[in-house]
């Protein structure tokens, strides 16, 4: 299928290929754009894209090479996490002046991708071998900047690492393709927060890819706040591989973008590995947010928990596709999944689809999903104690969404997510579906 915008991306690539960073990646980029030209944008004909239609995105004319003025980073100061090391990626490029990184354990690499790109080829090549999908291929073709974090054996980062993506292309419809690579050695630990935000008159598109490898007995907390401009498009894939006894904890909260898709694929490759995947979206207007997960248990004695909560106002729509695969050898897998959706208006819609593929026989796999509105009995109970209806509603909604980020222990990081929730809550009641 030859979408005109697919051709535009291919042409842009031909013009830009020599200017893109990392000469060693040139061949990989070439095969990636060929794969994208062949496959085009994913369509609802693909089972994994059944509920999210990229028609509007694929028809828009996004320019990955648009020459735009630099972003005024100080305008985004509220989004910086106090006490964190911060890498700022503005309009897809590293902003050294706005970034700040303190001292790190010996051997640790914490760098923008553009400055570490010569060392990533092997890992990216390996990642390309999986069936990643055409949006990851497009990212590979155009990736310019992002984050590289390498932790040597035993390194424990005292401060959280934040990668702050901001886009403001003014009147130009920019597309950015940030790439992040996190590789951690045995017994290492870190907290990484990806924050996405933007502004500007024209709609833009963020197409992000994050690769994470958690080493033996290492722990990564990976939190994502998606607060893109409400006219923006956001597609993201995180691919996570867990070694023996690795611990991975994700929180992905979305309040922004007209259309967003957050794909989180975790592969359990060493026994004893454990992952907790949390997330959800707070939506209004005609926003659409898709959370698609896959916990692929490949070896015995691994565990995963998935907790996703969506709150929908106006005519918004949420999608949850929760995947769990338990492969033949993965005996004693313990997995659970819970998706709850709170509809605040009659025009909102939630699609939820658990997808369990189990090929082992000695496993625990629990799943549950609900779609409903606010509990009227609970509202009356609160009202009968003198709490006015709006305040009662906010209390119940707050309790519901509180589950998304309740596992975040670091206070400053928690505040970063609470601010996104509070910001969304202030818009409640001001909408007539």
């Amino acid at each position: 299928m030859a979408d005109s915008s697919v051709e535009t991306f291919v042409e842009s690539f031909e013009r830009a290929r020599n200017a893109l960073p990392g000469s060693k990646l040139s061949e990989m980029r070439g095969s990636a754009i060929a794969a994208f030209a062949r496959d085009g944008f994913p369509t609802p004909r693909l089972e994994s894209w059944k509920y999210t239609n990229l028609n509007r995105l694929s028809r828009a004319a996004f320019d990955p090479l648009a020459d735009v003025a630099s972003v005024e980073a100080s305008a985004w100061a509220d989004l910086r996490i106090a006490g964190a090391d911060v890498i700022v990626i503005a309009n897809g490029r590293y902003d050294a002046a706005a970034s700040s990184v303190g001292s790190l354990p010996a051997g640790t690499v914490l760098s923008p991708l553009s400055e570490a790109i010569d060392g990533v080829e092997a890992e990216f090549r390996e990642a390309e071998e999986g069936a990643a999908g055409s949006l990851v291929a497009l990212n590979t073709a155009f990736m310019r900047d992002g984050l590289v974090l390498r932790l040597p054996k035993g390194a424990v980062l005292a401060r959280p690492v934040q990668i702050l993506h901001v886009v403001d292309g003014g009147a130009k419809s920019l597309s950015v393709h940030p790439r992040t690579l996190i590789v951690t050695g045995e017994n290492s630990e870190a907290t990484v927060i990806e924050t996405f935000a933007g502004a500007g008159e024209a709609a833009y598109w963020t197409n992000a890819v994050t690769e994470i490898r958690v080493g033996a007995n290492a722990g990564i907390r990976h939190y994502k706040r998606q607060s893109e401009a409400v006219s923006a498009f956001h597609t993201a894939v995180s691919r996570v591989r867990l070694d023996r006894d690795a611990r991975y904890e994700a929180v992905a909260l979305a309040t922004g973008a007209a259309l967003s898709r957050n794909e989180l694929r975790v592969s359990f490759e060493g026994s004893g590995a454990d992952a907790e995947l949390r997330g959800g979206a707070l939506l209004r207007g005609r926003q659409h947010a898709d959370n698609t997960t896959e916990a692929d248990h490949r070896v015995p004695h691994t565990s995963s928990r998935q907790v996703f909560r969506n709150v929908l106002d106006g005519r918004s729509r949420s999608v949850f596709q929760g995947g769990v695969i338990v492969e033949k050898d993965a005996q004693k897998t313990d997995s659970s999944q819970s998706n709850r959706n709170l509809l605040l208006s009659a025009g909102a819609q939630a699609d939820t689809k658990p997808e369990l593929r189990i090929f082992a026989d000695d496993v625990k796999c629990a799943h549950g999903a609900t779609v409903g509105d606010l509990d009227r009995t609970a509202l009356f109970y609160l009202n009968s104690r003198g709490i006015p209806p709006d305040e009662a509603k906010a209390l119940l909604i707050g309790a519901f969404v509180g589950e998304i980020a309740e596992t975040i222990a670091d206070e400053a990081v928690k505040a970063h997510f609470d601010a996104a929730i509070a910001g969304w809550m202030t818009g409640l009641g001001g909408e007539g579906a």
Partner: protein
Amino acid sequence: MSLLSVRNLHVSVDGKEILKGIDLEMGSGEVHAIMGPNGSGKSTLSYVLSGREGYEVTEGEVRFNGQDLLAMVAHERAAAGVYLAFQYPVEIPGVSNMTFLKTAVNAVRRARGVEELDAINFLKFAREKGKILEMKDELMKRPVNVGFSGGEKKRNEIFQMAMLEPTLAILDETDSGLDIDALRIVSEGVNRLRSPERSMLVITHYQRLLDHIVPDYIHVLAKGKIVASGGKELALELEREGYAKFGVEDAPAAA
């Protein structure tokens, strides 16, 4: 002047008439008990007085402190001084008892024109009132009623009543499902809250509660109407003779 004046109150739920002309006058500081068999309309009366949706008043009026109670919505009635202790207290996951109570107390204080309590003064106030009900601190941190035993839930209801300082407390089957120890704690709490400024409407299926909370007046509710009123001796008469005397089959269970 009566604190609460219910006149010829008719109430329907889903088009079915449940209350068929209730008259009730309560003065300040009085404790009235309403007894009746299942299905007589006891809970409907408590909900219609506290402002729950879905209860249609087809006839009659209710005045509270001279105001038209039925014109107010639930949270306004609470601010005006009406309190309902629920027969089945509601669980609210994710909201701590502390947050819930602080929000409620300050909403009511704001509406009554009293200064709101800051965190420290709220805590002092909660500790002081909590003693009356033997509330453990740990119950304050837990989500509202989640994982509470039956007795803890009912104690929490009376604790909230102590915090919100109503002028009219409606206790809807507060004794149901309680063992004798829990009943003692709850009813002692209620008795401590009796005052000349506070009236109570005690709704119960069981005569047992009235041994602990001794009412000034007793009314018998049957088939949506008050069929008898009298002093506390009426409870004993009911226990001896059952509701049959009032044309009702169901015998009152004596504890």
